[in-house]
């Protein structure tokens, strides 16, 4: 376990050494942004809209005390969406989609000697292949999470008003009540850390594949599970550090 962690940090070092010309990365980063960012909009939007809707209806179901104002439902949807659901849940979804894709792509390139082909040309394959994915993830995950938080709150609004558990006025008033802007900053900091973890852990798993198709499959699975573990662990640490 410790050897693997040590290997991972050595691997991170190789991303930043002997880099190629910046122009090369620029084009690759744009391509990766399209693949990671635009390609993930649908799944992130869908999951977060429904999560917001469910949070609203379940909160309303549990708030039976008539002395608690209904706008608290919107406040709970807002805070849980911004602080936890949008960043953490979206990044777990992205670990499944983007992480497995990165590990599978690099693993296949490894077993089909495409990475060796880059190495013999004198190109730093880890930097060339992985750095654009890491940069694109760090750029695109926060944008996806901003969208996710908005849609989660919107999902709560639609579900709450359609189900009749809260009026539109109460929902909007709840959204404005006791709002702390640092919540958004906190969510974005978390997302950047999660993006780095998902992209580098998945790349590490894929880049170091040895064997054949079976091992590529195993690497993809490990990429997702290890990324999810890293996300929840980092979530706890960041919450402790930034919110207490």
């Amino acid at each position, binding site marked *: 376990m410790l050897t693997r962690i040590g290997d991972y940090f050595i691997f991170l070092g190789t991303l930043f050494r002997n880099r190629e010309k910046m122009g090369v990365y620029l084009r690759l980063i744009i391509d990766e942004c399209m693949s990671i960012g635009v390609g993930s909009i649908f799944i992130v939007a869908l999951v977060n809209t429904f999560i917001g809707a469910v949070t609203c209806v379940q909160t309303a179901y549990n708030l039976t005390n008539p002395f608690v104002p209904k706008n608290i439902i919107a406040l709970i949807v807002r805070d849980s969406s911004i602080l936890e659901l949008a960043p953490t849940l979206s990044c777990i979804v992205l670990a499944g989609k983007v992480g497995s894709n990165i590990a599978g792509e690099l693993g296949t*390139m490894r077993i089909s000697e*495409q990475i060796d082909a880059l*190495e013999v040309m*004198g190109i730093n394959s880890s930097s060339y292949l992985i750095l654009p994915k890491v940069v694109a993830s760090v750029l695109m995950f926060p944008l996806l999470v901003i969208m996710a938080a908005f849609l989660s709150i919107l999902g709560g609004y639609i579900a709450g008003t359609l189900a009749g558990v809260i009026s539109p006025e109460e929902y909007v008033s709840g959204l404005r009540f006791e709002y702390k802007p640092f919540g958004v900053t906190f969510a974005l900091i978390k997302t950047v850390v999660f993006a780095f973890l998902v992209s580098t852990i998945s790349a590490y798993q894929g880049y170091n594949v040895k064997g054949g198709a079976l091992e590529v499959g195993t690497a993809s699975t490990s990429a997702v599970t290890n990324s999810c573990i890293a996300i929840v662990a980092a979530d706890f640490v960041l919450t402790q550090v930034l919110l207490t």
Partner: protein
Amino acid sequence: MIDIKNIAKTFGDRQVLKGIDGCFEPGQTSLIIGGSGTGKSVLLKCMIGLVKPDAGEVIYDGRDFLSGDKDLQKEIRREMGVLFQGSALFDSKTVLDNVRFPLDMLTDQSEEEKLDRAQECLKRVGLENAGDRMPSEISGGMKKRVGIARAIVLNPKYLFCDEPNSGLDPLTSIKIDQLIKEITDEYKVTTVIITHDMNSMMEIGEKIMFLYEGNKLWEGNSDTLTHSNVDELNEFINANKLIREMER
């Protein structure tokens, strides 16, 4: 010229190469032959820097490739062309972009120059009309030819081919061999080929090195291949029915 001196490599408790020496001349197709698991591919990977040998030297025209000088290694690597066993074409790029790739990454040529050179190389391997196709849309033989085009696009001084005929029909194999031989003669390239293919040995084996259990047991050429006193080599080549019949 490439000189290899006392190359040794061990994986775990298995010694794969036990001190291999050899010399590969420019303008000559040199073949490394031997059964599966005798260390041919590991030797090739040691020569091109994909595997670090435990001992030994690889000298490219007087320059020690394994000296640890990263700039020198990079310089020598840029003089190499490598055709991998599975061609190793980049799946996400078209045939033309695959061939252009070394030019894009390693030269400052203009777009027009790079395009011209890539198309010239594709024409050289007979694939001038396949530039827009993806690697998944072309046959195994075509992939090998694209691999050769990519390997020669930077006018390499050293060309390495890892089993260029594996998985190909005999006719396509002969064409690939002829192409490699022509390129070697034309550009005076130092060519090193790993192969099992008897046709290749007989047709383009200007120099042949036979490996057995990590040792070099024999060195010669296609003329002397069938007249050696090495039992292991005779057993290896006599596994081919055609050779047995020729000898009768």
